[in-house]
């Protein structure tokens, strides 16, 4: 994959920066969904952890179900847009939530150990069947990926305004930032719910990996970067400043700004410079 045909657009990348996820409906063909189902019904809730530093494409060749999934053109293009053409395998898990399963409070963030300032992994959630609201598809809280919290501390929060529960058709895939707050939900239906989750790490700097030729001059392109989310309250401007920083990282443009949020802070003419600090030692 090197051409731009199946990569994310600039607008989709901006949505990812703002909300922390991209959802692509019915990405996986029906026949492959059926193959996945057969496989996961046998595997139940099994996890495979990376045992060595290797590409996800090397870990899962094209004879495996996951290998086939990873080589779907839109899947490959989206992965390349976010973490590069040859990302590192982290772990893979199949999730089975049997019909009639109740879950308690479950809101959490996966990676308290991960304190990289801007680089991010992606988690890929694949839903091989239709998921109704009663089946309790994964619930996400858009825009929470900048929050520095510790795993289950946020389980105290039962509901957050603006939370989104995944209700989708079979073959839908959600690509999400590893720090996005999320929660498994009760399956109150009479159908089992399946979900596959794959985590991968970037092996290159995540700079301008998407289709940068697309819609980069569209009017209102950055509106979503400046849109405060309903749960952010007083912190809305701080969240916008985090988005600007992430967009700088992704574009390599350290001068990018909106409404001068960082420009005015960085423009302090009285701030000590490095040479001043050294002279006092």
């Amino acid at each position, binding site marked *: 994959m090197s051409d731009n045909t199946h990569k994310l657009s600039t607008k989709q990348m901006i949505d990812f920066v703002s909300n922390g996820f991209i959802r692509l409906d019915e990405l996986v063909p029906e026949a492959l969904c059926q193959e996945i189902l057969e496989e996961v019904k046998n595997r139940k809730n099994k996890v495979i952890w990376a045992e060595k530093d290797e590409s996800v494409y090397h870990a899962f060749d094209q004879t495996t179900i996951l290998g086939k999934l990873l080589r779907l053109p839109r899947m490959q293009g989206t992965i390349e847009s976010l973490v590069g053409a040859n990302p590192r395998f982290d772990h893979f898990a199949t999730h089975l939530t049997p019909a009639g399963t109740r879950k308690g409070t479950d809101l959490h963030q996966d990676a308290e150990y991960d304190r990289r300032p801007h680089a991010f992994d992606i988690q890929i959630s694949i839903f091989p069947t239709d998921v109704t609201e009663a089946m309790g598809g994964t619930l996400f809280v858009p825009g929470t990926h900048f*929050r*520095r919290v510790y795993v289950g501390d946020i389980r105290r929060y039962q*509901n957050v*305004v603006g*939370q989104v529960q995944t209700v989708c058709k079979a073959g839908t895939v959600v690509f999400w930032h590893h720090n996005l707050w999320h929660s498994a939900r009760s399956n109150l239906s009479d159908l089992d719910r399946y979900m596959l989750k794959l985590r991968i790490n970037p092996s290159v700097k995540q700079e301008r990996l998407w289709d940068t030729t697309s819609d980069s001059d569209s009017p209102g392109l950055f509106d979503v970067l400046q849109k405060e989310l309903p749960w952010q*309250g*007083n912190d809305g401007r701080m969240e916008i400043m*985090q988005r600007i920083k992430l967009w700088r990282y992704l574009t390599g443009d350290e001068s990018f700004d909106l409404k001068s949020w960082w420009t005015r802070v960085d423009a302090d003419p009285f701030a000590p410079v490095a040479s001043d600090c050294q002279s006092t030692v």
Partner: protein
Amino acid sequence: MMSKEIISKQRQKLMLLYLGNASLESHTIAWSIYDGTGEYEYEAKGTPEPPYASVLEAMRDGWRVIQLPVLQAPEKGREYETNYLKYEVALEKIEECYE
């Protein structure tokens, strides 16, 4: 004919409202209910509306505020970091339960 004894017990119902800012009139951005009476069972799904638009609205419906958040300036060097929801207000109702 045997008389049936009715036993009254008091149980606490706890509601946590998370606000957009420190004012008790500001809008609810998140919420949780922990019900000691056992009547209410938590189930997050979809995009539900908060039970009360503000703490003040809940107070007017009989909820008692039992804890307010402490206001704290961020640590030096962490001024731009965001983490937990800052404005957590704990409210309670004491309800009679019968067996």
